[in-house]
């Protein structure tokens, strides 16, 4: 099928370029490991839990969702560089599927996020985190959907604004409230009622709740399917929107 073939072509190309740049691998792994080693130890007393394992159970899913959101949101910068180099226009004069131009890129971002997630999970296992494999895979699905959505969104915005100078403040403005209102770093269990009310409107807070439930081993928690459904719907919407811009964008 043409869409699959084209998506695979773009994915391959983008993955190759990513692997060719060793700095990315260093930053992509080093940063989360620092969080794991230096930030997590503060959590046991802060969260009031008894064991390291419990602290990691809460912290690691939050960290992974955080990486998925931020990893995706800032992909647009690469696309602006590609626009400037003429690579996008060069693709757009060929009959390649416009959806593939987006999907190939976003899936590359998703795969790179998932490999980061695997490394972090393995490390956390060394710190006594325990999680059932099936639940872990579902959690990864959640992460994949988040990353697909945020990266597609970022590509769409990049195509619309075409300038780093606009993209950077825009993405920061989106990211900050999303981060603060999702209970990503600390659960909102102890937050005042109004803050929890606001957070209910933040789709990512559902995703974090769902991911935490999965890491807790609570597969039946409603947050799990709710989070997955919300993320899936938003991911499809973001992908559709951004693919349209690939078909239409000027310059």
């Amino acid at each position, binding site marked *: 099928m*043409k869409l699959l073939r*084209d998506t695979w*072509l773009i994915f391959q*190309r983008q993955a*190759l*370029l990513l692997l*060719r*740049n060793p700095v990315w691998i260093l930053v992509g792994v080093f940063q989360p490991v620092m969080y794991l080693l230096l930030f997590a130890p503060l959590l046991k007393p802060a969260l009031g839990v008894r064991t390291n394992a419990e602290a990691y159970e809460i912290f690691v899913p939050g960290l992974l969702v955080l990486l998925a959101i931020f990893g995706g949101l800032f992909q647009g910068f690469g696309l602006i560089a*590609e626009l400037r*180099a*003429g*690579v996008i*226009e*060069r*693709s*757009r*004069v*060929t*009959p*390649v599927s416009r959806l593939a131009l987006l999907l190939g890129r976003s899936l590359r971002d998703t795969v790179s996020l998932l490999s980061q997630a695997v490394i972090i999970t393995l490390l956390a296992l060394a710190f006594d985190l325990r999680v059932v494999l099936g639940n872990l895979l579902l959690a990864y699905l959640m992460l994949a959907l988040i990353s697909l959505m945020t990266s597609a969104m970022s590509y769409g915005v990049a195509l619309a604004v075409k300038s780093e100078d606009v993209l950077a403040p825009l993405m920061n403005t989106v990211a900050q409230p999303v981060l603060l209102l999702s209970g990503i770093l600390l659960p909102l269990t102890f937050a005042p009622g109004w803050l929890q009310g606001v957070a209910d409107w933040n789709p990512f807070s559902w995703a974090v709740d769902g991911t935490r439930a999965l890491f807790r081993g609570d597969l039946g928690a409603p947050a799990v399917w709710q989070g997955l459904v919300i993320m899936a719907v938003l991911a499809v919407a973001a992908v559709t929107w951004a693919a349209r811009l690939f078909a239409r964008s*000027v310059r």
Partner: protein
Amino acid sequence: MIETRGLRKSFTTRQGAVEAVRGVDLTIDEGEIFGFLGPNGAGKTTTLRMLATLIEPDGGSAVIAGADLRTSPGEVRRRIGYVAQGGATWDDSTAREELVLQARLYGISKAEARTRAARVLDGFQLAGYADRKCKTYSGGQRRRVDIALGIIHDPRVVFLDEPTTGLDPQSRAHMWDEIRRLRAEGITIFITTHYLDEADALCDRVSIMDNGEIVASGTPAALKREISGDVVRVGVASPALAAEALGSAPFVNKLETHEDSIRLYVDDGASAIPLVLRALDAAAVPLGTIELHRPSLDDVFLTRTGRSLRES
């Protein structure tokens, strides 16, 4: 091969609407090098981007290699190649990778894409650095990769937007040879340029564009013939005396007196020059310099727009 009628495009910017292209009619024959000559902002790139399906025209129609631009842009894409003004290669990829990818984006199989890439690399004399990253190439090498990318899928028509801008004279001459080679392979070539000599020497036919409109079309020779005659410029210390000596000569159509020279409008400069020399000699007017000025495409532009292409 290409036929456009009333092609129009305007952009809305914060300062208001820019009418970039205001009704362009073109007829381009199969197998020719067609040139689009015009100053900055004339609308050359915008026209090309419309024909290459990258932006949608506001009005008008075009048929390219038998496919209708408005109703089947997908078919147009399969039949054309397009090389953008600003280039299209990625710093960290190699020429070979770019070529293979581009061929595959056109639906060509992996093995065939590799074969074609190798062939095109040879053809454009790029084989020696095909596996080096594009950022290490010289301007001329990188431009040749751009063109190779535009023809990797054997298009019937290729659009080259300012293929030689920024190249040194040697690379330009080299590029002209490449473009002629493509024509010899049967590809119809549509290039834009703002170099007069390029339009003159390389193109079979040109259209001169200014301010979104075509102001003249034809072969370079025919366009220049429309500007009747040559100009002989004679540098003399006393233009008044020279004007007196030549003012009533039968071969002079018109005479202009300038500060330290006179300009003679004649039908044929080559036969006029000896007559000029003799007349000045007879009148004992000492000669400073003498230049023959054949009409150029710039003169065509000048007569059509009242401006010189060099100044705009």
